C-alpha cells in the first residue's frame, strides 16, 4: 500500500502525486507484496475475511514471472496463449488506431496501453452469458468475445458500417451480441446501472453475472457510492471494479481521495474486497473467477481494486508530459502486463521470441487488413457517413411527429 502524499499548508490539505515533470520517478525496487502473501478464502467467506486482501496486493506472478501461491489459477496452455494473443492484439490495434488519429483519420482515440490485462483476463474468467458494462478503457473484452475488428474500426471512424451510426465518439462501443453494453462518456454512470442489470438476472433466475469497471478518479462520483450501497443492500451477482491506474487525466489518485486503498471502501459495505495487481494476468483471472463463483453461488457482489498504471495519455487529446515525468511508466513496479505473461510462458517453455515475433507480425497484418477493409465503408475525411436520416431514428421506438417533421425539414 503506497503512502498518500499531501501538502499540508493551511488552510486545508491538498494531495500531491509522487513525482512531477523534471523529477525522477522512483517507485523502489518493486512491490513489497509478494505472491503467496495472501490466502485464497472460500467463496462463501465474509467481507471481514478479506480485510487483509483489501489493503494488501494479490499477486500470482513474481518478479521473475513465476506463478506462486493459492491464487494461482493453474490455467492451461491454450488459455494462457489466448490471453497473450488478445493483449498483443489490443496493443497493436491501439497503436494502429492512434496512428489513424494522428493522421486525421479518427476524430479521437483512447488507448488501453499498460492496462491490457484487465478487461481481457477478467472477461476470460467469466461465462459467455455474463454482462460486460465497461468504461472506455476496457475495449479488450470484445476481443475475448470474438468481435470482428472491422466492425470496431468502423465504429471508431463513424462510417456507414458503424453499428451506432456515427452517433458516438470513437471507442464508445456497443455490442449486444457480445453482451458488451453501450459505453457512455459521463464517467461512472455504468456502475449502478450494472447493479440493476445483475438484479434483473437474479430476478429472472438466470445464471448470469454483470461485471463493471470505473477509474480511481471516477470513484469520487455519487454513482460509485450508489452502486456499492445498492450492491451491498440487494446482493445481486455483480462484480465491481475500481481500476486504479493512478491518473484521472492530470489528477493523481492522491488528489482523488483521503482514503488508503480503494478496496477498503468495499469492506465498509460488507462486500468481500480484493486489491489485485492489475498487470498480473493470472492474479486478475483468479480474483475474477473467485468473484464469478461467489456470484454464481448466489452470494452476491465482490469489490475489486485493480492496481495498475496508466502508461499512456488519457486520450489522444491529452499530453501527460505537462503533469508527470515522461518515463514514469518505465519505473512502475507492476511492469508491462504483456511482458510479464510472455516471460511466464517463456519460463515454462511454452513460448519463445521467434513465436512472439511471428504472432506480432500476424496480428499486425490482420489489424492492417481490418483497417483497410473498414476504410472501404467510409473514412473520416471523405465519408461516406451514415445517412443523415439516422439523426432522427432510434430516438424513440417509433419516430414521433415532431421529429419526423424536422427530418422532412432537413430534407434527407
Amino acid at each position, binding site marked *: 500500500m503506497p503512502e498518500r502524499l499531501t501538502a499540508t499548508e493551511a488552510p486545508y490539505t491538498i494531495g500531491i502525486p509522487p513525482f512531477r515533470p523534471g523529477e525522477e520517478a522512483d517507485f523502489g525496487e518493486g512491490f513489497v507484496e509478494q505472491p503467496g502473501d495472501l490466502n485464497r478464502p472460500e467463496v462463501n467467506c465474509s467481507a471481514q475475511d478479506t480485510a487483509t486482501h483489501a489493503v494488501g496486493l494479490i499477486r500470482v506472478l513474481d518478479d521473475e514471472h513465476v506463478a506462486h501461491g493459492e491464487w494461482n489459477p493453474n490455467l492451461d496452455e491454450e488459455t494462457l496463449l489466448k490471453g497473450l494473443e488478445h493483449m498483443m492484439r489490443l496493443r497493436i490495434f491501439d497503436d494502429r488506431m492512434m496512428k489513424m488519429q494522428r493522421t486525421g483519420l479518427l476524430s479521437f482515440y483512447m488507448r488501453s496501453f499498460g492496462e491490457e490485462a484487465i478487461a481481457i483476463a477478467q472477461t476470460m474468467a467469466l461465462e459467455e452469458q455474463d454482462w460486460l458494462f465497461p468504461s472506455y478503457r476496457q475495449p479488450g473484452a470484445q476481443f475475448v468475445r470474438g468481435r470482428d475488428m472491422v466492425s470496431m474500426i468502423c465504429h471508431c471512424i463513424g462510417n456507414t458500417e*458503424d453499428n451506432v451510426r456515427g452517433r458516438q465518439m470513437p471507442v464508445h462501443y456497443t455490442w449486444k451480441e457480445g453482451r458488451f453494453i453501450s459505453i457512455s462518456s459521463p464517467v461512472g454512470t455504468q456502475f449502478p446501472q450494472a447493479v440493476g442489470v*445483475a438484479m434483473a438476472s437474479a430476478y429472472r433466475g438466470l445464471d448470469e453475472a454483470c461485471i463493471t469497471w470505473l477509474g480511481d478518479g471516477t470513484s469520487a462520483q455519487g454513482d460509485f457510492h450508489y452502486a456499492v450501497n445498492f450492491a451491498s*443492500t440487494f446482493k445481486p451477482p455483480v462484480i465491481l471494479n475500481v481500476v486504479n491506474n493512478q491518473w484521472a487525466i492530470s489528477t493523481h489518485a492522491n488528489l482523488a481521495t483521503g482514503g488508503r486503498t480503494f478496496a477498503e471502501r468495499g469492506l465498509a459495505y460488507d462486500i468481500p474486497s480484493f486489491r489485485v495487481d492489475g498487470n498480473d494476468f493470472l492474479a486478475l483471472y483468479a480474483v475474477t473467477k473467485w468473484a464469478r463463483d461467489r456470484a454464481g453461488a448466489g452470494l452476491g457482489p465482490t469489490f475489486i481494486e485493480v492496481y495498475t498504471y496508466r502508461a499512456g495519455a488519457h486520450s489522444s487529446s491529452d499530453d501527460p508530459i505537462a503533469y508527470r515525468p515522461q518515463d514514469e511508466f518505465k519505473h512502475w513496479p507492476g511492469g508491462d502486463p504483456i511482458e510479464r505473461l510472455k516471460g511466464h510462458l517463456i519460463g515454462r517453455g511454452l513460448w519463445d521470441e521467434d513465436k512472439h515475433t511471428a504472432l506480432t507480425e500476424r496480428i499486425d497484418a490482420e489489424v492492417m487488413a481490418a483497417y483497410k477493409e473498414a476504410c472501404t465503408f467510409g473514412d473520416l475525411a471523405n465519408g461516406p457517413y451514415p445517412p443523415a436520416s439516422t439523426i432522427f431514428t432510434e430516438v424513440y421506438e417509433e419516430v414521433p411527429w415532431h421529429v419526423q417533421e424536422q427530418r422532412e425539414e432537413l430534407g434527407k
Partner: protein
Amino acid sequence: MAKMNMIAALNSALDLQLQRDPNVVIFGEDVGYFGGVFRVTAGLQEAHGAHRVFDSPLAEGGIAAVAFGMGINGLRPVMEIQFADYIFPAYDQIVNEMAKLRHRSGGEFWTPVTIRTPAGGGIRGGHHHSQSPEAQFTHTPGLKVVYCSNPYNAKGLLTSAIECNDPVVFFEPKRCYRGPFYGDPHKVPTWNSHPDGEVPEEYYSIPLEQARVVKEGGACTVIAWGTMVHVAEEGIRQSGIDAELIDLQTLLPWDRDTVVESVRKTGRCVIVHEAPKTSGFGAEMSASIQERCFWHLEAPIERVTGWDTPFPHTTEWDYLPSPGRIAEAIVRTQEA
C-alpha cells in the same frame, strides 16, 4: 366502474400491470412495506411479493441507475421519485442515460423505465415539495413526458406509460390525489362526485400523445395540465366566456393537432401552468401555436403561470395561477 380517487386509480393501474406482466417491478423510497408516502403503492408488496415491490435506499440517482440496468436486462421497472423536487440527483441518469440509450447504441439497447413522481403545489410544501419540473424533461429528446389530472386518466395513462418501450416521466399532481382543486384552498372536494372519479376496475389504457378536450367552447382555447386543468375550469366559469378547455395529458410529444384545431376555431389562446413562466412548456406551445395559427389569431397568446421565483410556503396561493388570473387573461383575449 368504481369510485376511485387518484391514489386508488394509480394503485389499480400498478396492480393490474404487476398481474399482467411478470417483468414489472416497482421500487423507490418507502414504496414497499409502507406503500408510499402518498399510499399509491399500498398493498402491492403484500399482493405481489417483496422482490417485485420493494423499498430502495434513499438515493434517487441510484434508483434511476438501477432501473436503467433492469430495463436493459428484460425487466419493466416502475420507479418512484417521492417528490418531483428530488428528481435532480437522478437527472443525469434520466437525461444522459435513459433518454439517449436507444439512440447511442444504434437501437441495440433500450430501457422501458417509468418514472412516477408526485409534482406541483397546493399542499403547503414550500419550494422543495411543490415544484412542477416538466419543462426540465420536455427539453430532452428520447423521453416521453406525461402529466395526469384525474383518476380516470391517471390509471389509463400510467398503464400506457408502463407498456411504452421508451422511458417515460410520469407526473402526478399531488394536490389532486384525493380530489380536484378549483383554486380555493378552503374548499376540499373529493373525487366522489366528479365524473372522472368513476374508474373501471378492469384493465384499460389511454394512448400517450393525445390531448383531451375537457369542455368545448368557441371563444377561446384554454390549455392546461395537472392540477391547473381544474383551476382553469373554474377560471373559465368565472370569466363567463364560452372557452374550450384542453387537458394536454402528454407534454412530450404533445398533441399539436388537437390544440391547433381548437385555436384555429377560437382564434384566442390561454396557456396555464404552475411552473415558472420563463422557458416553461407554455413558451414552446405558444411558439408552435403562432407558427400554425398566426392568421387565425385575434389576440396575443396569453400565459398564466407560476412566477419566475422559487415556490413559496405560506404565500403559495399568490404564486399558483388562480381562477381569477386565468379569468382575467381569458377576458383580455376577448378585448384585443
